[in-house]
């Protein structure tokens, strides 16, 4: 009796109906579920890093101090996945402080809806956590204008500019969506901040979209909202 006939016999037996078939279906379903879970964790739909400006945008209203590098992190205030980005930044700054205190100023850009009066967009736990970073200051970005200038499309995008305004890094610093842990982006950023060269200048960021397909974080028509720009603390 060859294997094929054994399988054929099993497939026509009552055990197949009561055990084999349900087991096969179940393994297929949970296998697919597992695949979806892992794939979703790494699914990104932001534009390639290359679209980010290689130099500090001249029209940016974010203040950059000359002769000092600047780290900018773009956050959607309510993005749950960006908690991992903030956690990774904490880990990174702690390492830098421990090494040589070469922590650069960090600009936390909170992209909020334009002219939103909803207090729930301000002082969210994510933003509060981000502002606990060493040398962090908040820049409120109603409507996501600055995000657009810098080409940041998803929450958790981190950019590093050097003293002369060259972009050294742009992308994510988590291994997967909302996932903390060792990752290539974080390693590259650390090397750059410690004066070393990095093999990569960015990996895709994984988080909520800062800008809706219908436009930037708009609740009404998008427009200049300079009065809100540059609001730091």
């Amino acid at each position, binding site marked *: 009796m060859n294997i094929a006939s054994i399988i054929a016999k099993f497939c026509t037996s009552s055990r197949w109906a009561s055990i084999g078939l349900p087991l096969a279906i179940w393994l297929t379903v949970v296998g697919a579920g597992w695949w979806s*879970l892992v794939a979703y964790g790494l699914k990104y739909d932001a534009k390639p890093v290359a679209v980010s400006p290689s130099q500090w945008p001249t029209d940016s209203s974010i203040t950059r101090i000359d002769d000092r590098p600047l780290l900018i992190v773009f956050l959607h205030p309510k993005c749950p996945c960006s908690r991992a980005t903030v956690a990774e930044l904490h880990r990174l700054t702690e390492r830098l402080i421990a090494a040589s205190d070469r922590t650069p100023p960090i600009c936390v850009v909170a992209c909020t809806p334009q002219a*939103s009066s909803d207090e729930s967009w301000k002082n969210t736990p994510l933003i509060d956590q981000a502002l606990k970073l060493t040398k962090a200051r908040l820049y409120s970005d109603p409507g996501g204008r600055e995000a657009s200038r810098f080409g940041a499309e998803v929450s958790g995008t981190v950019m590093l500019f050097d003293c002369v305004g060259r972009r050294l890094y742009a992308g994510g610093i988590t291994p997967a969506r909302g996932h903390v842990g060792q990752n290539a982006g974080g390693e590259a950023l650390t090397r750059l901040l410690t004066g070393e060269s990095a093999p990569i200048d960015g990996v895709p960021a994984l988080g909520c979209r800062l800008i809706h397909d219908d436009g930037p974080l*708009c609740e009404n028509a998008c427009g200049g909202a300079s009065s809100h720009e540059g609001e730091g603390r």
Partner: protein
Amino acid sequence: MTSEFDDQQVSQRAAQILHQHEQQIYARTDRMFAVLLVGQWAAAVLGAIWFTPRTWSGSQWSVHPHVWLAVFLGGALCALPIWFVWRRPGAVVTRQSVAIAQVLFSTLLIQITGGRLETHFHVFGSLAFLAAYRDWRVLISATAVVAADHFIRGVYWPQSVFGIYASSPWRWVEHSTWVLFEDLFLIIVIRQTTHEMQSMSMQAAQLQDATERAEAANRIKGEFVANMSHEIRTPLNAILGYTEILARDEKADARQRREYVDTIRTGGRHLLELINNILDLSKIEFGRLQVERSRFSPHQLIADVASVLRVQAQERGISLEYRWEGPIPETIDSDSHRLRQLLINLVGNAIKFTHQGSVIIVARIARDVAGDQLTLEVQDTGIGIPADRLDDIFKSFVQADSSMTRCYGGTGLGLTISKNLAIALGGDLSVESQLGRGSVFTASVATGDLEGVPLHQTLPTSPVSDVVDLRIKAANLAGVRVLLADDGETNRKLMNLFLTREGAEVSTAADGDMACRMALGENFDVVLMDMQMPVMDGYAATRKLREHGFERPIIALTAHAMRGDREKCQDAGCSGFITKPVNVDELVLQVRAAAGVERIDDAPTSSVGSAKSRCPSDSIVHSSLPTSDAQIREIVQEFVDSVPARIEAIDRALRESNYDEISRLAHGLKGAGGTAGYDGLMSLGAQIEQCVVGREVDALKDVIDELKSLNSTLAV
């Protein structure tokens, strides 16, 4: 005796118990995991709602995919294992699906909690929990899923698990090895636990087996007691019935009275044989069967046995013959008494179960470097034994079929005793049988060294030597000087009378001290020494005599027929042993042999009357002695007259709580009562002694009441 078959049965039962135990563990662990899976599902959903409730696109939100994944993937992970737990508890597929689901839950929970390091411990915790199954195979499945997870991630999404985009293709092996590291310890623990379970199962099986055996033994003993009851009652009824007739039928002539007495004697002998069998079995069970070797003619022994049993065979219409195959040693070195007992058992059995044809004893000598052996085959053409019962017939209280007992009588002890006798004599006993065709019992016994022993090629024409028919009708003790030491007056008088009638010159002493003085002062041929006497007991007196160089035979008289007493007496220096109540023939034979009139190897001991006997209170109880003899009648009457005073003394001692005195009086009553032919008194005396030992006052009072009741019925 445990056979290989029994061991196999115990092993099978142990395997069955182990299987049941394992199934219980599997099913119980299945249920625990069912609860855990549901709990993890709920935790995953709640965690997803808590950590990642929404995903945003600008100001638009939707339910975060983590929530849906927790709901649907978690549900899917639970669904089939729980269904299997419900429908197939304890099945392999159930615990394997549980194992797969459990480690996949690790993936889900790690994802939901944002890859927290702590959540990774779920994998290791899950493996440890899966070890609760005590089935290492579930660990292998779980580990395979973990390895596959890391392998696939390493190929497609290395950054998700290793944090870098281009990891070594073997990095997943490193991760899996740490899981295997834990597996290693868990498998060791599982193996140890499994061994313990196997050991416990074996113990449980052995316990069950022992319980069943004990129950079976109890059942068989119950049947045995019922059978023994029948065996004892039958001759006892005859004895009591004919005794009653003798007592009442004053018109019976001498011939009739002789017939009655013969019947009573036959019944008594049957009872004696029965009790001897039981005592032998008791000795065997306690490993106290003694073999006393001497040289004797095997041919004469076989001829004697054939001669004794031939009448019985002829009554059944069958022939009993014997023959030798090969040379016949003039003598062998063995225990003639035990070999005779063995052969009588085998031949007696063969005759009992043979209705037509013959019983043949075939004897031969087997020479071997390991030792020469005498083989005795007892061949019969009887009913045979079923093959499946052949092993059982050598067990105590067992006959081939319980209905055999009803048809053929017997205690079911004969073959057990015979087998043990054969083993004690350096051989064995085996049987071959064909149902309806007959049986062959083959007994072998060691002969000792036959070097230098004449070997005859033909049958000797006359008995060679040594084996003596112990049953003598009369013995001449003329000129034999006997010192009789016994504190019981009745005993002294009766034994004095019996020995004097045989021609002996008897002096008496009432205690050990007096006996010592007399024995050392005068020239006695034999000393009869009661072992329990006041002032100085028989053991001390015997030791003292031996220490003072007294070399003549000292025969112990004791009411204790059980194990150890003979050895105790021998240790004290006694050269013979007679149990009370004293059998007159045995007394005379022992004295005669001890005095050097004739040597007797090992006279049988008797304990007639040691069985508990009660007499109805409304009937007259007569002495079993021949009280028609004026002298005996006088002694017995004297004893009967002394009984009320003895009872009164016991009563008084009881009121004074003087238990030593009660014991002394009861012992005297027991010895004297038995010797005077009142077994009931002897039995009650023994009971009083037992009550005193146990300080059972209420029981003691009951026995004394019974004694008083019996006293009112005593007659000479």
